[in-house]
């Protein structure tokens, strides 16, 4: 389980996160929802120790993040994390060199699923294919937790559909997924837990299925209620 406990983060004088707490379980898709600039990416960066927090605590299966945690958890940011001069195959070799968790069979499977050419250079990829390569590099790791930052941002409808398909496949089965997005239409029905963020605070954390059953509301309905209020 990923536990985010009362974290605060300031950039200069601006408090970007102000006591954010939530949990994300293995086998569940947790969605951090909020408009741009509410601190969704900062939360993911903080979980991965890519930005220091001012207070609070983040635990992954009860432990603070350390070098070994990166074999258990991975982050798929919305920017490519490989060198522009690399080919997709070079990027895969790089991952295989450094990660014990790298699963080459799954990587090859994803390569054909996304219809990517391993000889294409990272610098020449379209926005949609960049997102797919990011997904490939993250999903091909045999990790327990996946963090995804805006995987649908700025990409065409066909690429969105292909990426959304990943969430219903065995590729994310049994893994804990935290996804940030402000466009949840494509994956609303897949989300187990939603965390609504605004101005660095959690406005509401709820189980999507429960709300659907007990209140008869979709995540978007709850979002309307919370954000309009």
């Amino acid at each position, binding site marked *: 389980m990923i536990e985010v406990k009362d974290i605060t983060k300031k950039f200069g004088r601006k408090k970007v996160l102000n006591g954010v707490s939530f949990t994300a379980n293995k086998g569940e898709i947790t969605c951090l929802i909020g408009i741009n600039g509410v601190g969704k990416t900062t939360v993911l*960066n903080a979980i*991965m*120790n*890519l*930005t*220091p927090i001012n207070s609070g605590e983040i635990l992954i299966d009860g432990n603070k993040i350390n*070098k*070994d*945690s*990166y*074999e258990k958890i*991975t*982050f798929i*940011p919305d*920017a*490519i*994390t*490989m*060198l*522009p001069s690399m080919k997709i195959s070079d990027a895969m070799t*790089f991952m295989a*060199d*450094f*990660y*014990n*968790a790298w699963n080459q069979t799954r990587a090859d499977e994803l390569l054909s699923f996304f219809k990517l050419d391993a000889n294409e250079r*990272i*610098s020449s990829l379209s926005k949609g294919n960049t997102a797919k390569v990011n997904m490939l590099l993250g999903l091909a790791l045999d990790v327990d937790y996946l963090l995804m930052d805006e995987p649908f941002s700025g990409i065409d409808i066909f690429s969105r559909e292909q990426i959304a398909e990943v969430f219903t496949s065995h590729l994310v089965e049994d893994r804990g997924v935290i996804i940030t997005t402000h466009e949840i239409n494509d994956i609303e029905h897949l989300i187990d837990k939603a965390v609504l963020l605004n101005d660095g605070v959690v406005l509401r954390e709820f189980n999507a299925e429960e709300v659907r059953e007990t209140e008869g509301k979709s995540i978007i309905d709850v979002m309307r209620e919370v954000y309009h209020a």
Partner: protein
Amino acid sequence: MMSYLKLTNFELSRFFKMYLVLIGITLVMQTLSVVWTANNYLGEINEQLSSGSTVEEAINGWGLFSFDFITRGFWFSAPILLCIASLLIYVFFIWYRDWLGKNTFAYRLFMLPTARLNVFLAKATAIFLMVLGLISIQLVFLTIENELMKMIVPNTFREDLTINEIINGFDYLRVLYPVSFIQFFINYGIGFMAVIVVFTGILFERSFRWKGIILGVLFSGIALIVFFLPILLHETILNHFFYPTELFILMLISGLIVIAGSIWMSNYLLNKKIRV
């Protein structure tokens, strides 16, 4: 350890093309410098001979041609300076390129399942190996260029110098190729320490941005004071108290303190403060 070696290899391969270009430029410019300087000399000698002078008179007029004629020329030292300048810029670029542009490779580097200090040490090692590589190649070039000069200038008009004599006759080369191992250790040890301190300064900037520049400059200033503290004390308060050997040992210790302090601080910044 494996990750450190892989990262070092990776860092070296990232600069490899640029490195080959630098080596190519050095070889071409210095070879042309040998050919041009030697032919110029021979041209002047031939002119004097054709105007009726004897060989002795020509030599008395122009002197015997030695490799010093070449090393004193702009085209010989320019590529050396270019290599030094490129590596100095690369000390900064080796970090900043991982943050610049839309491809933030820093994300990947800091999510590798290895101690982040390995990234730091791999970059420092890569710079150090590149420097050692360039000076080794320059040594090979010196030998080749010396032989080339002998092929162009006839024996009569030549004063042959050994590689040692060539190096000692030229300021830049004397620094690059110290005569003793101790001097080599001092020159390159100070260079390595400077790289480590600059890296720490860069990490301060990457951690605290604008404030980090001030902190980085402060850190570098403190490192400089700590390193030169034995000499400062020796020259001022202690009134030349130490023997040269004692002073050398104290400088060695202060250098090690600076290196260890920088590595410790960098490790702290990489694990607790760095921002991607």
